[in-house]
């Protein structure tokens, strides 16, 4: 005896409940059609456990076996890597598109034309050195040139500062996401320990993970306990281990306190700089683009410093209308130094000055101590090593005096200590016509002697514009590029970098769309499909209700008889 009338009623009830649950899921899907990161869910219906009887098993209806999250785990890693690339190029594009505005000169203005105009004014002066209008024009075009250098320097420096501020903000954002993922790990673990599906929480965790991947290169591994392990992709440095969270921190750069490095904070609170481990995402984009803009600024400084040096050398040796001589036309180069905060020795820079204004190198140098008494000199401008030297405390270093810089370090530096020195750092920002010359135009040294009509020195200065001064080695007179060639090349580099970033953003957006579409194919909500399901479940619900109503009639018949 296997059936009874209540069995049929219970089947009806199970069907009503199951179809209702399925309808609810359909409703949830429809409700979340526009929710970012939402993964479509599907009710898996299965038959109830049958009652064994003769002649055969009799079914007990239906139940919701599981609520499945329609998810293609293979796509997960691709989504993460695409998010990283898109984040990286978006940052570069955003910054470079602003930077290139400073280098734009479609009209008649711009640094390139200011350089030509400045040296043109000296040509004019050479023909008529006593002409006051021409002398004023030399000063005026020099001031326009300085304004251009100053403006570009300010604009590039602001851009570097903005990028650095953004690095700090993005590190904060990453920490917040790491925190949320850790919280979600806890919630999902607790939710699923009873074999319940924490589908929506998983959606949120995936979404956070994608956001994190947009910030930096991360690798995700799911553990048996449904928690995820997150580490820095490539190096395996842990970021989230189950419910333990590590954080990142923006720490001041050891050489340039205005810039920040990205550091990893260990459990004890110690920091390790991980700039080199980051190779994707917004952070990578920001670090790289900051380096690019710094490079542009260094190149701009190269042009400015060689103009200052070249013009001043000739101007000092020339004579003004008032027989003045030895006067700089532009404010002279200043030697500046940087010392790493990570230095362990007691070495301190006590002297940093111009040794030979004629022959000073405008390259940037870095001294890396290999022991307490030796150091390697690296030329940061050319990227080459200039050799090893012995160090003696307090004495002017021959390695630098050969390059026109008088530098002395006292105390005892230790191996690994780093010092930097340069005569061109910040020069574009300090570029200015000497106030002595501005105050009295007679001091412009157009002559080689006290003969007022002699314009030879003006001609020599004018001729600098077609002299290859950039890339000059100390002791040599000629380098590889003229001011204009080098600057035009710099504009080309900026343009190329910007256009590369723009093209990559377009490419990455299109690939991201494809990956998103592939995810949509599996995980996305189709309203049409949900409508069909709704009809399907509604019809089944109606059928089940019918069964109950039939059983009700049957009971009625039975009770009445």
């Amino acid at each position, binding site marked *: 005896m296997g059936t009874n009338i209540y069995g049929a009623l219970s089947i009806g009830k199970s069907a009503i409940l199951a179809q209702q649950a399925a309808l609810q899921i359909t409703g949830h899907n429809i409700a979340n059609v*526009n929710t970012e990161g939402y993964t479509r869910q599907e009710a898996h219906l299965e038959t109830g456990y049958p009652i064994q009887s003769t002649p055969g098993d009799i079914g007990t209806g239906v139940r919701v076996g599981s609520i499945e999250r329609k998810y293609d785990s293979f796509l997960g890693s691709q989504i993460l890597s695409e998010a990283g690339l898109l984040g990286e190029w978006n940052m570069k594009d955003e910054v*470079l598109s602003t930077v290139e505005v400073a*280098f*734009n000169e*479609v009209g008649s203005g711009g640094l*390139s*034309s200011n*350089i*030509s105009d400045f*040296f*043109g004014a000296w*040509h004019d002066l050479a*023909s*008529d*050195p*006593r002409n006051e209008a021409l002398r004023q024009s030399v000063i005026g075009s020099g001031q326009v040139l300085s304004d251009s250098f100053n403006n570009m320097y300010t604009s590039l420096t602001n851009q570097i500062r903005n990028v650095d501020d953004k690095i700090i903000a993005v590190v904060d954002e990453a920490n917040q996401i790491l925190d949320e993922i850790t919280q979600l790990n806890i919630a999902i673990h607790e939710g699923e320990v009873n074999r319940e599906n924490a589908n929506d929480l998983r959606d949120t965790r995936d979404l956070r993970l994608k956001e994190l991947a947009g910030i930096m290169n991360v690798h995700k591994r799911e553990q048996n306990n449904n928690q995820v392990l997150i580490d820095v992709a490539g190096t395996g440095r842990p970021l989230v281990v189950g419910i333990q969270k590590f954080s990142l921190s923006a720490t001041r750069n050891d050489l340039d306190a205005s810039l920040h490095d990205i550091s990893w904070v260990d459990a004890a609170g110690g920091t390790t700089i991980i700039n080199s481990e980051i190779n994707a995402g917004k952070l990578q984009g920001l670090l790289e683009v900051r380096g690019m803009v710094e490079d542009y600024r260094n190149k701009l400084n190269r042009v400015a410093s060689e103009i200052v040096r070249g013009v001043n*050398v000739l101007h*000092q040796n020339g004579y003004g209308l008032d*027989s003045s*001589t*030895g006067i700089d036309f532009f404010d002279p180069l200043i030697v500046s130094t940087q010392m790493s905060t990570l230095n362990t020795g007691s070495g301190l820079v006590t002297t940093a000055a*111009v*040794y*030979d*204004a*004629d022959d000073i190198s405008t390259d940037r140098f870095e001294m890396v101590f290999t022991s307490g008494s030796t150091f390697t000199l690296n030329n940061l401008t050319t990227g080459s090593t200039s050799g090893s030297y012995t160090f003696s405390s307090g004495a*002017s270093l021959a390695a630098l*005096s050969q390059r026109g810089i008088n530098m*002395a370090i006292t105390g005892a530096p230790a191996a690994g200590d780093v010092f930097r020195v340069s005569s061109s750092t910040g020069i574009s920002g300090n570029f200015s016509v000497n106030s002595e010359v501005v105050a009295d135009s007679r001091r412009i040294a157009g002559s*080689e*002697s*006290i*003969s*007022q*009509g*002699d*314009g*030879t020195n003006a001609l020599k200065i004018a*001729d600098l*514009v*077609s002299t290859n001064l950039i890339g000059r080695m100390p002791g040599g007179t000629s380098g590889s590029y003229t001011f*204009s060639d080098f600057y*035009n*090349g710099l*504009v*080309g580099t*900026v*343009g190329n970098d910007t*256009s590369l970033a*723009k093209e990559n953003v377009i490419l990455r957006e299109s690939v991201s*769309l494809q990956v*998103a*579409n592939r995810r*949509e*194919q599996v995980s*996305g909500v189709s*309203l*049409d*499909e949900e*409508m069909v399901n709704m009809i399907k479940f509604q019809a089944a619900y109606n059928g089940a209700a019918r069964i109950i109503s039939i059983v009700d009639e049957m009971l009625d018949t039975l009770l009445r008889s």
Partner: protein
Amino acid sequence: MFRITNAMLFNNNLYNVFTNNKGMLTAQEQLASGKRINRPSDDAGAFSQALGHRHTIRQNKQFIRNIENGISNLQLADSALNSIGGLVQDAITIAVSQSNATADASTRQTYAQEIDNILGGIIQLGNTSKRGMYIFAGKNKSTQPFASGAVYYGSRTEAMAEIFENVQIGVGLDGSEMLATDLNPIVTTSTTLASLNRGQGIAQGSFTITDRSGSTSTVNLSSAGTIADVINLINGSGANVTASVNSSQNGIMITDNTSPPVTNLVISEVGGGSTAAAFGLLGDRSNSTFVGFDLNPGITGSTALSQLNGGAGMTLTSLNVLNGAASGTVSLAGATTVNDVLTAINALTGLNVTASVNASGTAIEINSNDPTTNAYALEVGTGTSAMDLGISGGSNLIRTLMIFRDGLRDNDSIAIQGSIDMLQTGLDRVLTFRGKAGAKTNRLESTLETLTKLNDDTLTIQSTLEDADMVKAASDLARFQTAYQATLQSSAKIMQPTLMDFLR
């Protein structure tokens, strides 16, 4: 089954709308600005190239301005030389007429006045200037090149102008090549201080040298007789510096040996003097060398012939010296110093002449010891020694006219006769000089033409690089517009209906 979801439709649609919008924006920007490149990233290579072209155009415009200025100088020179030639021609006519037997002391006296006027006219023309800049004074354009006397006060170096990249041409001419020789010796250690500044001497007071270690020493030149003395006094002053003759060999220079330097190299006068300034050494330098300027030494007896003409030297042959009825030929081939030349000429017997260095130390002159006769020299064969030494003839037009004038005054028919020859070589010299200036004008004009053409071509290239292809931009705009409309229409059709529209 390939599922298409609503989000896919929306995302694809947005992507396509944005792509079309961007295309329209680009095409519209090109149409509005007329430029294909509106920022460096639009075409970095072309943008950078265009900047280069723009620089070239601007530089060429500068060269064109330099050339126009040079041409106006040379045209002025040409007209001055034309007048000088005419005046010399007049002088020759007078010389020919006054060398005839019909001329007498009184006509010659009259014409002496005329020649004096011509001489004044030529000096005035030699001082031709443009906006206060003398065109026959070499690079020292503000220095009046000629005063009374056969002395050139300008520079033997021409005033240059750049007419093409790294091509310079002299547009301020060296008047000594035409009117008055300037032997322009170099400065050596044996050069006497008295001979400096064309024999005017130089201030010999005291000045102080503060070397780059900051230690100050005083140098007193009152006892110095030669440049070697000056150098020794500076080197022995205690300052850590080395003095030497500068690389142009026209002055001295001081090199600081301090290492490492802590201050500028400063040279100052002592007690309101002007000694340092006179040597071009007054002031301060932030580098280790202080180069003094041209001290304009005059020649003295001990000046070696190889030191003349800025160190280029000269090769002498023979001279024919005349004075009244007497004449004699002297060979100067073996002479090595100015004294050798003077001694050889003075040794000529029966001529009664004295050869000496002129007061400015710029040339050698031969004067008659007899007030009624006038001494002069003529070339022997194709030699140019008389002209080269500045005695007479050729480029010594002023001196020649003075001899001619004095010959007329003294009724010295031999000197008048000789003047015809000398004036003729002077005229030749003027014509040669004018020819050289003319050749320069031609060169400037042809360069001007090249530059103008070059600029036109560069503009065309630049326009090809920068300017938008309007037809292409317009058709691009239309293309993207069509695509944009199609996208909007199709999405309206695809997105609007859902199954819900059909379930009632």
